[in-house]
């Protein structure tokens, strides 16, 4: 049985924890709204670019297709680009991402491919390093900027394309959380390089002039498409992080409330017991006289 003083100390410490989780929850809720708006605003560009890509990729195929679209011809070295958050306190978000990355890595290794990781964000590094200490390649640190934007996406994409051109990998997969709601953020695995040929290639209804040629336009658009994909992943990550954090902190606040209630009851009971014991002692003493 803990003493009264100990109980009081515990109640106070849980109370201050509750204050912290409550504050974090409110901050996340405010940031979530902004992150969601940013994700929303980024959509028109992505839809338009992929529409143009679809119409062009349908026309340029075969040997004329750029390397980013056609691939290196091999399918041996795979790169997993895992987009994790930089900060914790967001529930199971990062462990779910790591789980998805590990599953993908196992699947590829079972098929006899070699796997390497490229990590964006801090939180995935430790758990992946524990499992695959030798497979962690380069990475990108997004923790230095407040909200990662297009500049960061550009830097990541340029580095990946350079690695691709240098022949360091044949296929790159992008693993990132998709924001569904504050309660659900699903890890998604997408092929990033070579750019998957859009299946819904719409046949152009009218004759379109191209300047310069289709091949050259496509050549210029493909790196841009990769950048947009990464930018989208960063936006989704931001929204997911805040959503997951909000939910996790809401739960933590509620748990702290329950704990405080339980401890308070225990505190009152032992105080009552102490008073009763004291009274019995006094009465017994008085009767003995």
């Amino acid at each position: 049985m803990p003493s009264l003083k100990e109980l009081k100390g515990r109640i106070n410490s849980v109370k201050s924890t509750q204050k912290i989780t409550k504050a974090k929850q409110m901050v996340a809720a405010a940031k979530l709204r902004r992150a969601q708006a940013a994700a929303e605003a980024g959509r028109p560009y992505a839809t338009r670019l992929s529409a143009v890509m679809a119409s062009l990729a349908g026309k340029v195929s075969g040997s004329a297709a750029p390397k980013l679209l056609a691939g290196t011809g091999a399918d041996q070295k795979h790169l997993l680009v895992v987009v994790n958050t930089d900060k914790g306190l967001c529930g199971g978000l990062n462990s779910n991402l790591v789980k998805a990355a590990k599953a993908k890595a196992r699947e590829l290794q079972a098929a006899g491919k070699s796997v390497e990781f490229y990590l964006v964000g801090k939180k995935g590094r430790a758990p992946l390093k524990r499992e695959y200490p030798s497979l962690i390649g380069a990475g990108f640190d997004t923790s230095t900027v407040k909200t990662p934007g297009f500049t960061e996406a550009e830097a990541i994409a340029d580095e990946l394309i350079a690695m691709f051109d240098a022949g360091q990998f044949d296929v790159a997969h992008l693993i990132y959380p998709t924001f569904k709601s504050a309660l659900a953020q699903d890890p998604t695995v997408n092929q990033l390089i070579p750019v998957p040929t859009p299946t819904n290639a719409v046949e152009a209804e009218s004759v379109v002039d191209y300047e310069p040629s289709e091949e050259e336009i496509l050549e210029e658009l493909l790196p841009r498409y990769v950048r947009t994909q990464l930018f989208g992943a960063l936006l989704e990550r931001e929204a997911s992080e805040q959503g997951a954090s909000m939910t996790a902190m809401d739960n933590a606040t509620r748990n702290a409330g329950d704990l405080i209630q339980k401890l308070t009851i225990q505190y009152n009971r032992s105080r009552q017991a102490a008073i009763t014991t004291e009274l019995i002692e006094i009465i017994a003493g008085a009767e003995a006289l």
Partner: protein
Amino acid sequence: MPLHFELVTPAKLVRSEEVHMVVVPGTEGEFGVLEGHAPFMSTIRDGAVQVFAKEGAVPEIIQVRGGFAEVSEKGLTVLAEHVEA
């Protein structure tokens, strides 16, 4: 008939408005787009997009970097990675 002009960056939809004419700095030379232009696609070199709100009006200049222009029957869409108004 006005031309529907849209300027989009990865971060947001910068412009969506009806204008008279837009002059776009294409990789192989500047070109002006009026309403009813034939379907056309071009990459853009870094430079200024000139937007003429009315015929004969003073053009509004928007600096773009890393761009791409598409003309369809719906109008002109400029996709740019960076925009400085």
